């Protein structure tokens, strides 16, 4: 590693616990709590107070499935916002040699961790969404809808706009997840080592 002056660095290595991850994890937890509370109030408390409708069964899966993607997309936006702020800073001072403020430096250094947490949350969101049709609540809702339709004597309940909306957003979601997993793969140390700077910045 070099001369003895680096021994302090070596002695600190086994005591560290994910030094670069503290800020991003804190940000993710804070955002999750905020968005969970927001969805809870909107989707469960409001119907209960207004129409006495008991939707508490939605808490474990549907509310969580609304929190995860919102936190994921917010964190992803934060990753690229840091770069924009740094560019604005450089334009304002007209030079690249002025040091960034302390908070911006910290933010720029934790971009990789923010991006990886965002990818993880997005992956869990995919899993939750794929499990939505498996649930018992879904089965009961479907049977009830079938009963209503037969009772109303409607032969075709096809709603073109709803169909197109769902097809489009699911399609975009899968494509964006594919691209994010591509980004995450290039963060693996052995793969990012085999890329040169031009290739790495092209992908990222």
């Amino acid at each position, binding site marked *: *590693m*070099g*001369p003895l002056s*680096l021994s302090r660095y070596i002695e600190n290595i086994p005591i560290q616990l994910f030094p670069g991850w503290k800020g991003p994890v804190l940000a993710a937890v804070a955002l999750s709590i905020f968005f969970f509370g927001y969805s809870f109030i909107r989707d469960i408390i409001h119907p209960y107070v207004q129409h006495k409708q008991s939707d508490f069964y939605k808490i474990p899966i549907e509310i969580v499935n609304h929190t995860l993607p919102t936190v994921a997309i917010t964190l992803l936006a934060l990753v690229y916002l840091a770069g924009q702020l740094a560019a604005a800073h450089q334009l304002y001072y007209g030079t690249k040699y002025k040091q960034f403020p302390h908070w911006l430096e910290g933010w720029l*250094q934790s971009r*990789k961790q923010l991006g990886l947490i965002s990818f993880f949350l997005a992956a869990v969101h*995919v899993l939750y*969404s*794929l499990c*939505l*049709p498996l649930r018992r609540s879904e089965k009961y809702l*479907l049977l009830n*809808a*079938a009963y209503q*339709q*037969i009772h109303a004597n*409607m*032969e*075709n*309940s*096809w*709603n*073109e706009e*709803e*169909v*197109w*909306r*769902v*097809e*489009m957003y*699911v*399609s975009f979601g*899968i494509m964006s*997840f*594919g691209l994010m997993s591509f980004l995450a793969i290039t*963060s*693996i*140390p*052995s*793969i*990012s*080592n*085999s890329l*040169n*700077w*031009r*290739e790495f910045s*092209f992908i990222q």
Partner: protein
Amino acid sequence: LEAANKADLCFIAVYPEHHSTLVELKPALAGKTLVDVSNSLRINQNGPSNAELLADYFPESSVVKGFNTISAWTLQMGPRDGGRQVFLCSNSQKAKNTVKAICHRMGFIPIDMGLLSSSLEIENLPLYLFPSWRLPLLCTLFLFIFFYLYNFFRDVLQPYVMEGKKAFYKMPIEVVNVTLPSVALVMLALVYLPGVFAAILQLWSGTKYNRFPNWLDRWLTSRKQLGLCSFLCAVLHAVYSLCLPLRKSARFKLVNMAYKQVKAGVDNSWEDEEVWRMELYLSVGIMALGLLCLLAVTSLPSVANTINWREFSFIQPLNFCLFDVLQSTLGYCALFMATAHTLLYGWNRAFDLSQYRFNMPPTFVLVLVLPFLVLLSRLALCVPCAAGWLRKVRRGWERSRHIRFTLPAEGCHNGLEDVSDV
């Protein structure tokens, strides 16, 4: 001038076009180490590199090429992402050792590339942009566009033209979900097809010492990238298929079918054949995906150092690696499973005339041509006489030049055990 006089080692951090302006410092820099960190704007195929030109300007100093592949961010923050490598080369071992020591102090890992003649290669390193991925990606794109248009004509346009049925909602998900597996299977077959061609070529010419034609060579070296593209398409196909029941269109269709069934008074709409078909093809499909995942994981650099999808037995027949044999076996199993998945999905639709809209065969028939070709040729090459010949050719036997040794057996006519071909 003062700095050049006091220091033993100088980093020449000037643009390569301006190296000539430092000529007046030549006497001050004599006998010292100069580190050239410059980068060019475009790839230099032949002709002297910047480091060699610098060495011509300062013949008394030792020039070391290095640090040009490291970004300013990494230099400032230190190596973070799992150990950064620095490529060095120089004609003087002493100068190289000094720079290596500096590298270690900064926390980088120096890689010795040899003499200054390797500086051309080091200077070209940061300018490449995925050179080995261009052809596979182009191939994937072309196949995707072709299959998407084919499926669009068959599933969306043809019902609209013939029966006025509006099925355009199928475009974002259902048509893509038939395109992706077609691309994946065709590309997986393309990974193993050049191996078959190469084996046939070797058998035909009777020797392994003839060079392969240029196109076959390029194809053989891009097999890993073709395989990874195929894996990406397969995973996306799995995700799309898992999303099929989520959609509103699936829910509407289900409720409409329930309504029809109630009105028709049918109390059990179970169709045994359809049930079996789906259970079988889903199961085989999941297993094929699992095998492909295993293969993809083994191609990670840290899992398999320099081993790629190249069949080792071509180049060094005597010490073939167990890992390569495993990868090759896994690959053929994955191809077989994927072909079985497609066959089971098709079931008997190839024989149903109503599926041949506009005389176009169903997509899965088109897709199965290449994999069948690969699997059948592989089977043919496993037949004992063909396999024996191939093994002999790969051990070095040549049809035009082999020698027969016979033991001097007096009057013995069962010569076969006493004869060996070399």
